[in-house]
């Protein structure tokens, strides 16, 4: 199993926001969205990844893209993680049924956590760009976010 390829419509899924509300496929529509799938809140690589992505958040927003972090951690753990890092990237939880959304996007690791992967969808919720790290320990540079957003916006 590997991450969804460009050109494929995003699957139906339900994730939980920090406030407990649902985030579904319908929330992808209307804007370019970057889903940052990551293995574990508080792990060293995920920490470095969100610290760096936070630095380019404003620039990506200027290009019309919204970033979300997605993992199988509970919303409470994700909120604590983002708060501790001082990161404002909204977190979405795939806690229950665990890994169902990750599975739908092709990024559920056999160990029961999200692969480290990036998925960019366009205004019509179609995947325009995707990337899966060679291993969960590899950190994708923020340059890839710009590549992905450029693929979705056509700029």
């Amino acid at each position, binding site marked *: 199993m590997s991450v969804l390829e460009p050109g494929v419509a995003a699957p139906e899924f339900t994730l939980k926001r920090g406030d407990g509300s649902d985030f579904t496929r319908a929330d992808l529509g209307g804007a370019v969205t970057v889903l940052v799938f990551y293995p574990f809140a508080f792990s060293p690589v995920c*920490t*470095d*990844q*969100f*610290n*760096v992505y*936070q*630095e*380019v958040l404003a620039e990506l927003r200027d290009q019309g893209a919204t970033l979300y972090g997605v993992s199988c951690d509970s919303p409470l753990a994700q909120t604590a993680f983002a708060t501790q*890092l*001082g*990161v404002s990237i909204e977190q979405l939880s795939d806690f229950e049924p665990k890994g169902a959304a990750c599975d739908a996007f092709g990024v559920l690791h056999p160990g029961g956590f999200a692969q480290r992967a990036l998925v960019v969808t366009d205004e019509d919720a179609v995947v325009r760009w995707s990337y899966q790290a060679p291993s969960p320990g590899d*950190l*994708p*540079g*923020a*340059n*890839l976010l*710009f590549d992905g957003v450029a693929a979705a916006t056509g700029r």
Partner: protein
Amino acid sequence: MIVYGDYECPFCALTETRLVAAALRVCFRHFPVRSKHPRAWAAACAAEAAAMQDAFWPMHDALYADQGRLEDPHLWARARRLGLDLERFDADRRSDAVEDRVAADFRSGIRAGVATTPALVASGTVRMGVPDASVIAALVAGDG
């Protein structure tokens, strides 16, 4: 070789000592990650402000030499010790020119695929993490 570093990052300081010990010539670029190191940006600006008085490397060394002291009074103390014009240093480190310089370094790192510090760029390869003895030996041999 280009080194992307952050003055508040302990791994960068360790890398610096290894590069210095190996007498490698480096081009230093700033990669301050603010959510991880809240004083990294200010420290980078301090180094660039010192550069405007021809004291980049002395300030660079002074910042790495004492990473526990990076608040404003500590930066002023370093500037004073290096014999800089303190008023000019303080104005420069808050100037748009210096901010832009640090931001340009950061952006160049992002474009090169730097995702964490330290990162060494040599022969077209970005290597993240503290270089071990074999990496240093390869860099010294010029085939890193």
